């Protein structure tokens, strides 16, 4: 099927609306995920560590990674694309595919359609921006057989003649499939181009690589109108949620949305099905209806479904011009449903099945206190105990943003827990209560203990003030200097840490910063 792909290069950067002359890059987990044209020109590359990127380009503006924001700002662009025809499918913020045949006939040919769309979309983007769009950031439109070939054609701004897409794809390296595990395996098998992979027999690929292999094979052979082979007419799998009262705020709508997403994922998994497209529909209290189709590069995972639902709800609710009332109905409908034949899942899940009673209790608590009322703990790296465990609202995708060095430590009991090692972290045991309060520290002569700029302590601490009374210090250790984020004035922190034990046996983690003393944490 002739497909048109509309790509906005570097969308996460464009979404930030910075001046095009300023080099900027978006980081996640200390690695570049997107870099502006200027930054690329100074040698910043995707996947590069922050320190290296900043050494190549010292004036680099560091932006935070926020896919929800990218999706929200992309919503008006999708609306502009919808003016050209139905069957618009969003692959990710910055990339949309749609059927090309009808619109091409209407606009008098594929070349005319391509030029018209590029112009209209650039206008739509420019109207929401303060700064002009860099010429390299202009929208790119490509037409080919099937969404995958069209996407690659869009990168080059080309139209691939009908029936020649497979030839067009053949020389591309295998890694454009964006499935690192599969690509790695194929490369070691000597299959380095899409052409070589497409030449393999599909049933054999399926037998060896399961659903993901089948999807990759369809992409490589420009046969990806449907990613999954329907075995039978799928039953109605629509999941609907009614919101009473209608929700105007994203977090409230998302609470129902997340719930529906979970149910859809659970239903699909239970029936042994997978879907590659997701239709999200909302109806407001004023009867307005919005529908959007999301396409995934392979079978949707439950986290991916929830993420798309959140992006979409945020996009619709943030753009006030679109909806006049609160959302009353949310409907999720899977499309392109096929049997999930052997998706490569992990061998086991340490958490195991979350029992229904626990699920219900969490839903109840989140209903009472909001999504952040119930959280799960994600162990990550960090120097200070407050950084070493991130609390993530229950149900959100879990990803440690500070992975730390892999280190295995056995803790009490039979289960070995892997706690990441971080340079300069406190020695264990870790203090149990982390709560910063001011305090005072005096030496044996009654003078305030000070720490010099070179981290030299004026005298051994002898007494510490706690809850208004002075307590004798019987043992202490320190100073352990910490000079964090010296490159950033606002978050720069230079303190020296001490451990002290009082005469009553209570132990504390103290810190001295700018000549003031704090109790950072308590070893209760």
């Amino acid at each position, binding site marked *: 099927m002739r497909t048109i792909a509309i790509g906005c290069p570097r969308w996460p950067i464009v979404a930030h609306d910075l001046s095009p002359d300023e080099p900027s890059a978006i980081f996640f987990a200390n690695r570049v995920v997107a870099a502006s044209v200027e930054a690329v020109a100074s040698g910043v590359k995707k996947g590069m560590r922050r320190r290296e990127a900043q050494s190549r380009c010292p004036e680099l503006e560091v932006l935070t990674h926020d896919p929800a924001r990218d999706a929200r700002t992309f919503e008006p662009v999708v609306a502009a694309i919808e003016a050209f025809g139905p069957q618009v499918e969003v692959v990710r913020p910055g990339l949309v595919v749609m059927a090309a045949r009808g619109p091409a006939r209407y606009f008098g040919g594929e070349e005319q359609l391509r030029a018209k769309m590029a112009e209209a979309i650039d206008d739509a983007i420019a109207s929401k921006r303060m700064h002009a769009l860099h010429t390299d950031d202009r929208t790119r439109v490509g037409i080919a057989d099937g969404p995958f070939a069209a996407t690659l054609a869009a990168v080059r701004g080309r139209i691939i003649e009908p029936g020649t897409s497979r030839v067009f794809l053949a020389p591309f390296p295998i890694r454009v499939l964006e499935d690192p595990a599969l690509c790695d395996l194929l490369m070691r098998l000597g299959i380095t181009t899409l052409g070589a992979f497409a030449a393999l027999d599909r049933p054999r690929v399926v037998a060896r690589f399961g659903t993901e292999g089948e999807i990759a094979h369809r992409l490589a052979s420009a046969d990806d109108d449907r990613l999954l082979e329907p075995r039978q007419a799928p039953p109605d799998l629509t999941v609907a949620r009614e919101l009473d009262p209608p929700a105007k705020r994203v977090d409230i709508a998302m609470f129902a949305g997340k719930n529906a997403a979970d149910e859809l994922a659970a239903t699909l998994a239970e029936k042994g099905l997978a879907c590659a497209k997701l239709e999200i529909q909302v109806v407001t209290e004023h009867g307005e209806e919005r529908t959007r189709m999301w396409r995934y590069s392979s079978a949707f995972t439950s986290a991916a479904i929830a993420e798309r639902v959140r992006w979409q709800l945020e996009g619709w609710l943030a753009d006030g011009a679109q909806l006049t009332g609160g959302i009353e109905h949310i409907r999720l409908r899977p499309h392109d449903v096929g049997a999930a034949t052997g998706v490569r899942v992990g061998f086991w899940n*340490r*958490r195991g099945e979350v*029992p229904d*009673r*626990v699920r*219900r*209790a*969490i839903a*109840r*608590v989140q209903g*009472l*206190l909001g999504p*952040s*009322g*119930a*959280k*799960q*703990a994600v*162990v990550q790296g960090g120097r200070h*105990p*407050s950084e*070493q*465990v991130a*609390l993530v609202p*229950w149900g959100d995708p879990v990803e440690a943003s500070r992975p730390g060095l892999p280190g295995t*430590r*056995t*803790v*009490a*009991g*039979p*289960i070995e*827990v892997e*706690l990441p090692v971080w340079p300069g972290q406190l*020695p*264990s*045991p*870790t*203090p*149990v*209560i*982390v*709560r910063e309060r001011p305090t005072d520290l005096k030496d044996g002569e009654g003078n305030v203990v000070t720490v010099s700029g070179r981290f030299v*302590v004026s005298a*051994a601490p002898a007494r510490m003030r706690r809850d208004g009374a002075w307590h004798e210090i019987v*043992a*202490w*250790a*320190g100073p352990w200097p910490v000079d964090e984020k010296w490159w950033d004035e606002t978050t720069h922190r230079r303190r020296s840490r001490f*451990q002290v*034990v009082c005469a*009553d*046996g*209570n*132990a504390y983690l103290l810190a001295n910063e700018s000549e003031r003393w704090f109790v950072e*944490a308590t*070893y*209760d």
Partner: protein
Amino acid sequence: MLVGPMTDRLAAAITTASQLAPRVLPVAGALQPLLPDGGLRPGWTTQVGGAGATSLAFAFAAEASKTSWTAIVGLPHVALRAASELGVDLDHVVVVPETTVDVFAAVIDAFDVVISCPPPLRKASRINARVRERDAVLLTLGATPDADLTVVGSSPRWYGIDDGHGHLAARTLDITTSGRRAAARPRHATIWLPDADGEIRPHTEVTPIRAAL
């Protein structure tokens, strides 16, 4: 001191009693002598106080958290890394930083073990009743009226730290438990919480501290 047939009879009586004893959630070996049933009895409210109370609560919940779901309620300042080091399996932990009576009720209904701040005084008896009814284990940090069991830590002694050098490495803690009914007789023990290897072990006079410290 009991000797001869008397001890045998006592042993037999204990065996029978343990067979009749209710199902309990497991705790680390060093803590077993402190509990009347050698484990956490479902339906009981336990208040933990004194020195090292937070570590003690985590230590009591650690074994159970490997198989049971644990909620940490109304304790926004606890460092979960420390809980993890004491053996709490964070994969089975849900953290509820804020709390209301409704939250208490929802959590007690569903979770096997709940570690919480003391419930509001006026609602304490209602919450205790709910714990009994749902066979939950509630460990509160602080005074809780009508608790079934009271655990008090005292005389913490830290090892590994000296005058300006070393670092906190190990601690011993004296623990006393007392309570109502089956727990009426007070029990005492001194434990390492944790020892130099990060484990919870009974303290015996001969326990050497690793020379490296």
